[in-house]
């Protein structure tokens, strides 16, 4: 571990913090284009964050300290998740802090805090949102774990950097297990990031919202942090998906040149992935909340089959 390792770690965190709202803006732009609307500016999420950070903070009269701490906890969890997912380089000083299983735990921690905070103020919508969030979470987590396990079966390790390192250096071969895992991962990330068909990130229609219901009572800088954390989560999931299934271009050697080459590659992959995500959202309709368990059961099943196929075929 040397200076360059720390440099790439810092670069990765900074990049995640700066690029995450841009990715959200990019996806929103594509969504608008696909719906034949005129698109908002690419910088709209930054403007929104700027506006919210300068607004007055309004707290409910009986809000506890948990309610006030939650935005910072959630933001911290997502920033750490972005730091340990190897998006630019596989040589990260922070990566021993959490492996693939702890990464899922990190997302779960954020979910528990935000659900508790939503119930804390005692409005009906917060409780409703919290229950739905937990329903989705408890089905999505095992599926996500199974996806990560089928990737770690290939590399015999649960450390994210080792997994990505192995996947990036394999010979060109077709892995049926990774195809299953890829489909499952896409489904899980749609559910976890409150995208259509599970939830609509743009809705404020009371009866269908999940993520928006959770943060309904927040305002000012708290809301800004939560919005930023949601962008970071999407960024983390996108980077994890790209690192697991399209790991080409991630720097492994400790050289400034490799890092410099990895950066445009990552941005290109994120741009393509964001456009595809918007397309996927555009062609699917939001499903009924009671169909969501079915959707996530399918994701879980595909991930398990991926593991089984891996064991059967040995690849």
């Amino acid at each position, binding site marked *: 571990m040397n200076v360059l390792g720390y440099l790439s770690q810092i670069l990765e965190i900074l990049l995640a913090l700066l690029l995450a709202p841009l990715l959200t803006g990019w996806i929103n732009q594509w969504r608008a284009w696909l719906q034949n609307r005129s698109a908002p500016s690419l910088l709209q999420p930054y403007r929104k964050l700027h506006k919210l950070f300068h607004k007055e903070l309004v707290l409910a009269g009986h809000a506890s300290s948990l309610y006030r701490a939650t935005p910072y906890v959630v933001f911290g969890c997502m920033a750490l998740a972005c730091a340990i997912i190897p998006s630019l380089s596989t040589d990260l000083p922070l990566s021993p802090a959490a492996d693939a299983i702890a990464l899922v735990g990190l997302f779960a921690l954020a979910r528990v805090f935000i659900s508790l905070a939503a119930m804390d103020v005692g409005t009906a919508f917060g409780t409703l949102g919290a229950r739905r969030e937990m329903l989705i979470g408890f089905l999505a987590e095992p599926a996500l774990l199974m996806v990560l396990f089928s990737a770690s079966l290939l590399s015999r390790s649960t450390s994210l950097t080792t997994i990505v390192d192995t996947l990036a250096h394999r010979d060109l071969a077709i892995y049926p297990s990774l195809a299953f895992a890829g489909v499952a991962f896409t489904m899980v990330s749609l559910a976890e990031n409150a995208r259509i068909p599970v939830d609509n990130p743009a809705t404020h229609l009371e009866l269908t919202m999940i993520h928006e219901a959770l943060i309904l009572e927040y305002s000012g800088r708290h809301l800004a942090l939560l919005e930023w954390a949601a962008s970071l989560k999407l960024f983390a999931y996108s980077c994890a998906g790209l690192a697991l299934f399209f790991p080409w271009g991630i720097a492994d050697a400790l050289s400034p040149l490799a890092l410099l080459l990895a950066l445009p590659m990552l941005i290109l992959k994120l741009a393509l992935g964001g456009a595809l995500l918007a397309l996927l959202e555009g062609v699917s309709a939001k499903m009924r909340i009671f169909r969501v368990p079915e959707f996530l059961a399918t994701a879980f099943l595909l991930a398990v089959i991926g593991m089984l196929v891996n064991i059967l*075929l040995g690849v």
Partner: protein
Amino acid sequence: MSAFITQFINLLAAILLMLAFAMLSQRRILSLIYLYTLQGATLVAATAIVGFVTGQPHLYFSAAITLVLKVLLIPMLLHRVIDRLNVRWDVETLINIPTTMLIGIVLVMFSFYLAEPISQMSSTIARGTLGIALACVLLSFMMMITRSKAVPQVIGFLSMENGLFFAATAATYGMPMVVELGIALDVLVGILILGVFMFHIREQFDSLDIRHLEKLKED
């Protein structure tokens, strides 16, 4: 090159398994027919590739028969049947879908375990996929059990035949030509008879629910 082709066959086998699960979780009859067509097309590709690698011309014939029958003719017949019967939409399942899928996972594990010693004795290029073929057969069988309407049951039956065909290709490079032609004809005649049968069920009971058939006497 050979390793790459083996991997490609494995991928096609994995797609077959995915399609079997998609059929199991599907509620619409129309989508079921599309999935069945897709399954047939995957089977054609797998058979043709195995034939190409092993240089066995009779596999080309069976791929051609599969193409004509299972990708073109039978889906067309099924489309006509559901158009006439006017049953394009929802399918009732007897067990709810997440439970069905969990049972499906158990079936897959069972067939993988069962097929392992057999595929170790075999020396064909696609021996690893025997477990997947067996799983496809069992999953289609379960689809026949869990559906209460006649059309999805027929589609389950047809996809079971697809699974058997793939198992034969994977384990022994296909059955003898006479047997294969016989089965192809059987399936075709079977679908015609079942089509007529469905019209009769419908005429008799005003519904395609086969539970009505359990009654022996008219009330």
